């Protein structure tokens, strides 16, 4: 059974390794989140915003030309059609309601590709809450349009200038600012990472993805259970959402796709399950890329959203017990897969998502298999990267 225990662990991974200054915040959230989420009032507001604001349910689209090409029945779960362009908003809608119920006045968040930052700025505008987004200085350069979107939405964007100046450092900075403003501020973590209860709370908000896949597939294929679910993993929130209702259904193969960067042995990679070992990152015990001395290694991926040296503890557990298959896709192959999907299905995917598409070349399946790929985001934000790469 994949289930979180009362101390916040999935098997060996998870927990809350945080400075004492954050203990009251984490404790407040841990004590209240399940109860708040279970109230009809919360569910009503959450479901109504998912429907009318986010645009859910997102379609489960049969990709006929892609299916023909790869010899399987391939469905795309269209999270790219969510308001703001990716699955990230499912979580921010949930957390902003949570923050309100907890009486918080300010929101802070980290962002990598900028998708989570935009999704957070969006719900803050919706609720009239003060919003500050921490973003690596390098990511600010490569995701310019998203930075401007956040600003248009009224958020303050603060560059994280330490370390590799990417997602890891933005997360460090957000945690520091939370320590500095613990009383009135809620930190909306964007992935299934961080101290307990964040990984589980975020996964539950994202679990709407697999909840919908179940009934949509039932309508189309007569079964709730696909043979495979494929999703890309940086921290792993879209994968957690797509896998959630299938964790304990062994007949459904779960495929998690990591970013190999320039190649897993190149020294420029973000393939955590290949290169990582057990340790503590951002408040939880998980697999992370680190030196022998326990210093965190700077990752590399062409996609900012996968450019993270760890994975969420639930994914570390899925890997550990062999419940999910992990594959790694290099930058170049991901870019080609992005073009491929654009031309076979008329969908330009986010580069994160393009990694999941390329996985079709790396795993085995048979021609009757029903495969669901979680199309986590659209490629608008990545136009600069596509243009610079130029291979089309």
């Amino acid at each position, binding site marked *: 059974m994949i289930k979180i225990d009362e*101390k916040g662990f999935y098997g060996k991974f998870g*927990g*809350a*390794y*945080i*400075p*004492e*200054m954050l*203990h*009251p*915040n984490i404790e407040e959230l841990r004590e209240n989140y399940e109860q708040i989420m279970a109230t009809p009032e919360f569910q009503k507001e959450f479901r109504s915003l998912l429907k009318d604001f986010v645009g859910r349910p997102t379609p489960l689209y049969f990709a006929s030309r892609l299916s023909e090409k790869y010899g399987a029945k391939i469905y795309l779960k269209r999270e790219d059609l969510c308001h703001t362009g990716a699955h990230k908003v499912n979580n921010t809608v949930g957390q902003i309601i949570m923050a309100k119920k907890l009486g918080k006045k300010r929101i802070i968040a980290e962002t990598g590709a900028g998708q989570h930052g935009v999704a957070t700025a969006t719900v803050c505008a919706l609720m009239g809450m003060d919003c500050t987004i921490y973003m690596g200085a390098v990511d600010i350069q490569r995701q310019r349009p998203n930075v401007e979107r956040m600003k248009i939405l009224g958020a303050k964007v603060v560059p994280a200038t*330490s*370390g590799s100046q990417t997602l*890891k450092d933005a997360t*460090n900075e957000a*945690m*520091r600012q939370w*320590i*500095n*403003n*613990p*009383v009135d501020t809620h930190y909306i973590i964007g992935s299934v990472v961080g101290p307990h209860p964040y990984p589980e709370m975020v996964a539950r908000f994202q679990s709407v993805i697999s909840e919908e896949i179940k009934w949509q597939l039932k309508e189309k294929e007569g079964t709730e259970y696909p043979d495979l679910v494929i999703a890309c993993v940086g921290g792993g929130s879209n994968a957690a959402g797509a896998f959630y209702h299938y964790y304990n259904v062994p007949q459904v193969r779960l495929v998690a796709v990591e970013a190999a960067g320039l190649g897993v042995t190149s020294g420029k990679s973000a393939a955590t399950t290949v290169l990582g*070992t057990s*340790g*503590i*990152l*951002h*408040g939880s015990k998980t697999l992370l890329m*680190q030196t*022998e*001395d*326990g*210093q*965190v290694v700077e990752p590399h991926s062409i996609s900012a959203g996968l450019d993270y040296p760890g994975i969420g503890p639930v994914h570390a557990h899925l890997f550990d017990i062999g419940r999910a298959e992990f594959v790694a896709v290099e930058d170049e192959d991901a870019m080609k897969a992005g073009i491929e999907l654009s031309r076979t299905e008329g969908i330009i995917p986010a580069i994160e998502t393009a990694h999941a598409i390329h996985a079709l070349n790396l795993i085995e399946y048979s021609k009757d298999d029903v495969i669901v790929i979680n199309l986590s985001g659209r490629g608008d934000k990545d136009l600069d990267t596509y243009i610079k790469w130029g291979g089309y």
Partner: protein
Amino acid sequence: MNRIDKLFQSKKERVLSIYFTAGFPKLEDTLTIMQAIESAGADIIEVGVPYSDPIADGPTIQDSNQIALDNGMSLKKLFEQLQEMRQSVSLPVVLMGYLNPIIQYGMEAFCKKCQEVGVDGLILPDLPMQQYLDEFKEVFDKYDLCNTFLISPQTSEKRILEIDTHSNGFIYMVSAHSITGARTGISEEQIAYFQRVESMNLKNPRLIGFGISDSETFTTASKYGNGAIIGSAFIKKIKDSQDLKSDIETYIQSVIH
């Protein structure tokens, strides 16, 4: 008896603990800095183990961590440097570090090595109390290492009492909602918090840290606790120092007097 306990038996006021990052500003400065802190008249030496992702620290200590790592500092290297420490340093020595490098070294191996070189206590800010009790307390005790937990203005009285029960050596009172180096001076609100904790009559001595930088803030903090910890301000003083020994002595003297 552990040197920290011994210190607080004889000195209950104006105890000064100085933090520096091992390997900063230069890789081999560690012992020089420790000796200078001692000869200048401070009471406790807090040696920071550098880490790539110090989430409780502000820019000054972050930078010193990064420079120390770039200089080649590691836990292994630090223990080599501290091997001969007790020939020239008699003050209590506390290691302050984040959990991950220590776990990779191995908690038991780490504690054993600490005892071997003469370290007296540990401050591991991201080690949660429950985890400490479940997994590590036994090994800390086995190697006679004091364990210091942090409390902040937000820590509930119930939790402070729990922390007091499970701490030994001293309690580290974070003076404000803050990462290191973010504050200067001491506000009335902070004083109310110091007084609230003072009135709880905890069994452990209390050192106040974060925002202490000079004689005035040290004296104020010492009024409400047993003394104070200086970190970021000290790091700033030694950053570009051409004469560590003399600069450290001048600075510490200016704080004490």
